[in-house]
């Protein structure tokens, strides 16, 4: 048993044997057994320390190491005694440190789990994304046509391989229930590029991508365990994926994760085709491209070459590639390339501030105690303790406090993380499945250890140094009164100013984020997201081959859902707002101008059923919505949003005007505009609406659509009836992503909501600590000046004079701290710029409110101890000498 290694070797065998025997004999509860096991370990360890400290055989000279150990143990025992003797002080210090260290441990654990883990690929630093850029639209994204990716792979000499993949939400059938899995279609060289092998069977190889190869699939470890009971015999059998038989080739190792920046892949299948077939430009699908750099090439040279290749492609294919470029980004660094603000750095800095405040408070307590202990230390010094020895004693005591604080903090972090894990938003679990492992791991423990050591030095260092330096025979002579000199007071004044300033910075940051969140919630997304149920239907093409059948399904499903009691209106759309998907197209307006090929403007593209606008509550501003007049046999029609109307037709009314989908060379039919609808925010609340073009499902074709059903009551309650209604149209058709629209919108605000709640917690803690700190400093100042006040009272000063005196001094410190804090906050809050919305980093109402609140609470914290000064009885104070 590993546990026994905790026992010192001398007694390990006898004690461990006894414990095991006691367990084997039974008759003892598990809890009780653990209690005696742990107390055994403690007893043996303490005994061992005692031996090392005291029972050194007289026959040999103690060595240097023995002496050090001996003094350490003595210091430790002495420190433990001191802690026990001042339980109030110990409790206050340990609680404060526990708070500071705990919040650091928890935050570190969260940041660590959300950060990109080292990729489990061969030589991962050479694996890169190829981002597609569009100069005309100032865009950069994880998308590129398969044809371009193939061309880049063909022409580049600095890249070893180029692969591409595409999300594939597939139906896995054949088991008890059909299941929707997160699969990916990948080029067959993907696994070779990543340099990973399967754990069971084999991964995809190039031959699997040949046109004549059998349909095959590689499973993730998770899917294999969940769906196939981790049965190795599944290799070589066939499973039904989207209605087609696929041979199971292999299972990837448990730690294999691909791709890293999207839904976690559960299965991978090869895209088949000849090299020329994949490079065909017409209708080439949009993919995510990845590459592996050749050994010995740098990102800089590869980037230079990819630029040349893209220019060549632009010259060869001006129709499709005008303005298109590519950018290589090391896979692990993609987050840095897109993140609006370094959230994890901000979070860690914020908790570091909380820790600093906790340390400042404990330093404050220690300083107060140092005064009380001056006499004790002077006695020890007089009895021969050297300066170094005293410093070491005080630092050992600080280390003990830090250790106790860490234990408490880790416990609190453990509980806090467990609560957090139970209430994680679903979106986070889908996109970052590791969050389910949130807890105290080895790395967090190491981090906590480092934080504890650092804080022990921070809060214990200055008081220890001071106590040792100030050690004279002075305290022995005076009547045992700690006489704090002015350096002590200056230090405490600095501590107080620092605490006020630091907490103000956090409060301002939190205030700005709270305002941001408030502003976001005030934004009108262009539709009413309350009481709307959404779900997704993806018709498999093996059962719905022709567009007419798809249309029939969606029309019938709309009617069935609309007939459900409790549903006010229902409609389907190919892409719902906030669904994290989008579809776009280029278009040409009939305004007489004909844009150069490749320079056509772009718009988001939506396919809807008739009642979609009513279901979501999107207002019709002009003209009409789609209705039964619009059939596949009638004239092609479109509805556009306000932004598209303005962009394509300026101020003129667009009703009756025409648009054509595609490039200027395309011969697609003209669409007559029959209506204009309000703008809808699509991807994020904070992002302005894009142009949108709506066409009726009766004149388009799509196999995947999302339902929006406006309900009269709670949408969750109607979910069952709505799903049943769809099942009446086709009982074999699965629906998925069933959730209220409100949740989609809330999920889109997750980064801001997360940042806000996190920062709010930190700021409240900081505020609390700073208030306690102010109170502590002012109390101390008052207690140190008791004698002075007594003299003043005796000489005729009124209590009000004393109050004014104390308040003036403390408020000056408070004011100085606030001023410094405001200046610091102006500098620091710029870092938040990327996630702020609707408020600037120097939003003066926030600053005023925060500074005001801090001054108010700070004044109260000064007032309470100041009042004590006015209640002094001069006779008592002066007689105390």
């Amino acid at each position, binding site marked *: *048993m590993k546990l026994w290694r905790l*026992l010192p070797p001398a*007694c390990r*065998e*006898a*004690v*461990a*044997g*006894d*414990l*095991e*025997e*006691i367990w*084997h*004999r039974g008759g003892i509860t598990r809890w*009780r057994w653990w*209690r*005696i*096991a742990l*107390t*055994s*370990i*403690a*007893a*043996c360890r303490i*005994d061992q320390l*005692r031996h090392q400290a*005291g*029972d050194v055989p007289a026959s040999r000279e103690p060595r240097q190491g023995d002496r050090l150990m001996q003094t350490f143990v003595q210091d430790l025992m002495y420190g433990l005694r001191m802690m026990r003797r001042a339980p109030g002080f110990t409790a206050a210090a340990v609680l404060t440190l526990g708070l500071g260290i705990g919040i650091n441990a928890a935050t570190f654990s969260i940041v660590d789990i959300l950060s990109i883990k080292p990729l489990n690929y061969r030589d991962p630093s050479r694996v890169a994304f190829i981002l597609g850029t569009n100069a005309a639209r100032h865009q950069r994204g994880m998308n590129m046509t398969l044809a371009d990716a193939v061309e880049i792979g063909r022409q580049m000499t600095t890249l070893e391989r180029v692969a591409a993949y595409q999300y594939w939400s597939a139906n896995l059938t054949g088991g008890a229930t059909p299941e929707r899995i997160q699969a990916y279609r990948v080029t067959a060289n993907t696994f070779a590029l990543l340099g990973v092998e399967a754990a069971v069977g084999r991964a995809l190889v190039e031959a699997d991508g040949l046109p004549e190869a059998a349909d095959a699939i590689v499973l993730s470890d998770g899917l294999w365990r969940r769906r196939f009971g981790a049965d190795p015999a599944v290799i070589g059998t066939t499973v039904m994926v989207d209605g087609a038989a696929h041979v199971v080739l292999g299972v990837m190792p448990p730690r294999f994760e691909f791709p890293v920046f999207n839904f976690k892949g559960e299965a991978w299948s090869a895209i088949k085709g000849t090299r020329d077939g994949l490079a065909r430009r017409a209708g080439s699908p949009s993919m995510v491209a990845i590459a592996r750099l050749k050994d010995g090439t740098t990102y800089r040279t590869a980037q230079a070459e990819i630029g040349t290749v893209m220019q060549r492609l632009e010259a060869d294919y001006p129709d499709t590639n005008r303005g298109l470029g590519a950018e290589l980004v090391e896979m692990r660094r993609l987050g840095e390339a897109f993140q609006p603000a370094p959230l994890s750095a901000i979070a860690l800095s914020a908790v570091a501030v909380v820790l600093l405040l906790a340390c400042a408070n404990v330093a404050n307590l220690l300083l107060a105690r140092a005064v009380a202990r001056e006499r004790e230390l002077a006695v020890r010094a007089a009895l021969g303790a050297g300066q170094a020895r005293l410093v070491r004693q005080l630092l050992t005591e600080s280390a003990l406090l830090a250790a106790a604080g860490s234990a408490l903090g880790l416990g609190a972090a453990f509980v806090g993380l467990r609560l957090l894990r139970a209430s994680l938003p679903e979106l986070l679990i889908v996109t970052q499945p590791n969050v389910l492992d949130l807890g105290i791991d080895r790395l967090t423990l190491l981090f906590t250890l480092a934080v504890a050591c650092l804080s022990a030095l921070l809060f214990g260092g200055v008081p220890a140094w001071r106590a040792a330096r100030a050690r004279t025979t002075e305290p022995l002579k005076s009547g045992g009164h700690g006489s704090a000199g002015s350096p002590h007071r200056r230090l405490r004044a600095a501590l107080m100013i620092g605490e006020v300033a630091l907490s103000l910075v956090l409060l301002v940051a939190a205030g700005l984020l709270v305002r941001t969140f408030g502003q976001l919630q005030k934004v009108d997304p262009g539709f009413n997201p309350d009481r709307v149920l959404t779900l997704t239907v993806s018709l498999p093409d093996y059962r719905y081959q022709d567009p007419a059948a798809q249309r029939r399904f969606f029309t019938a499903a709309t009617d069935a859902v609309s007939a459900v009691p409790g549903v006010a209106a229902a409609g389907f759309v190919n892409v719902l707002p906030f669904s994290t998907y989008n579809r776009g197209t280029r278009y040409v307006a009939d305004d007489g101008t004909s844009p150069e090929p490749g320079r056509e403007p772009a718009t988001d593209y939506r396919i809807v059923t008739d009642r979609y606008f009513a279901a979501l509550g999107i207002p019709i501003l002009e003209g009409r919505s789609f209705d039964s007049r619009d059939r596949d046999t009638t004239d092609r029609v479109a509805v556009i949003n306000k932004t598209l109307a303005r962009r394509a037709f300026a101020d003129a009314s667009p009703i009756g005007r025409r648009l054509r989908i595609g490039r200027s060379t395309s011969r697609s039919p003209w669409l007559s505009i029959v209506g204009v609808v309000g703008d809808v925010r699509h991807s994020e609340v904070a992002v302005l609406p894009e142009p949108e073009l709506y066409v009726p499902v009766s004149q388009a074709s799509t196999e995947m659509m999302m339902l929006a059903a406006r309900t009269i009551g709670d949408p969750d309650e109607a979910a069952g009836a709505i799903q049943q209604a769809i099942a009446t149209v086709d009982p074999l058709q699965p629906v998925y992503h069933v959730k209220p629209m409100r949740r989609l919108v809330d999920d889109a605000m997750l980064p801001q909501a997360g940042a806000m709640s996190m920062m709010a917690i930190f700021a409240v803690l900081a505020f609390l600590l700073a208030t306690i700190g102010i109170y502590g400093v002012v109390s101390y100042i008052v207690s140190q000046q008791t004698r002075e006040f007594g003299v003043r009272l005796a000489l005729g000063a009124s209590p009000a004079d004393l109050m004014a005196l104390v308040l003036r001094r403390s408020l000056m410190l408070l004011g100085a701290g606030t001023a410094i804090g405001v200046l610091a906050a102006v500098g620091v809050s710029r870092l938040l710029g990327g996630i702020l919305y609707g408020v600037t980093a120097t939003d003066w109402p926030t600053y005023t409110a925060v500074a005001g609140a801090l001054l108010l609470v700070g004044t109260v914290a000064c007032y309470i101890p100041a009042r004590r000064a006015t209640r002094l009885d001069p006779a008592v104070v002066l007689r105390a000498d």
Partner: protein
Amino acid sequence: MTSDPQRLGTFEQLLLLALVRLGDDTYGVPIRADIEARTGRVVSPGAIYTALDRLERRGLVRSTLGEPSTTRGGKRKRLYRLTASGAAAIADAHGQIAEMARGLKPKLGTP
């Protein structure tokens, strides 16, 4: 650490009395069971071992290693027996207590 071989702490007395009762070559598990059954005190094997170790250093008990057994996960027992001075020390300590307690039973409220 005290150097007076005659002075015994309460726990040490309990241990030595257990050794007297259990006879030679007994070990931690029965000692623990005996103390717990008679006094209700929950003691850990670690505390028993460290105290016996202290007594051994003072020459009051002597220990040997026994045979390993499977119920002990293959670990050997450490077997203890009283030495002559140990027997004398516990007899002495018990005698003192008994002498002091003589006739006090009604006042101490013990049965």
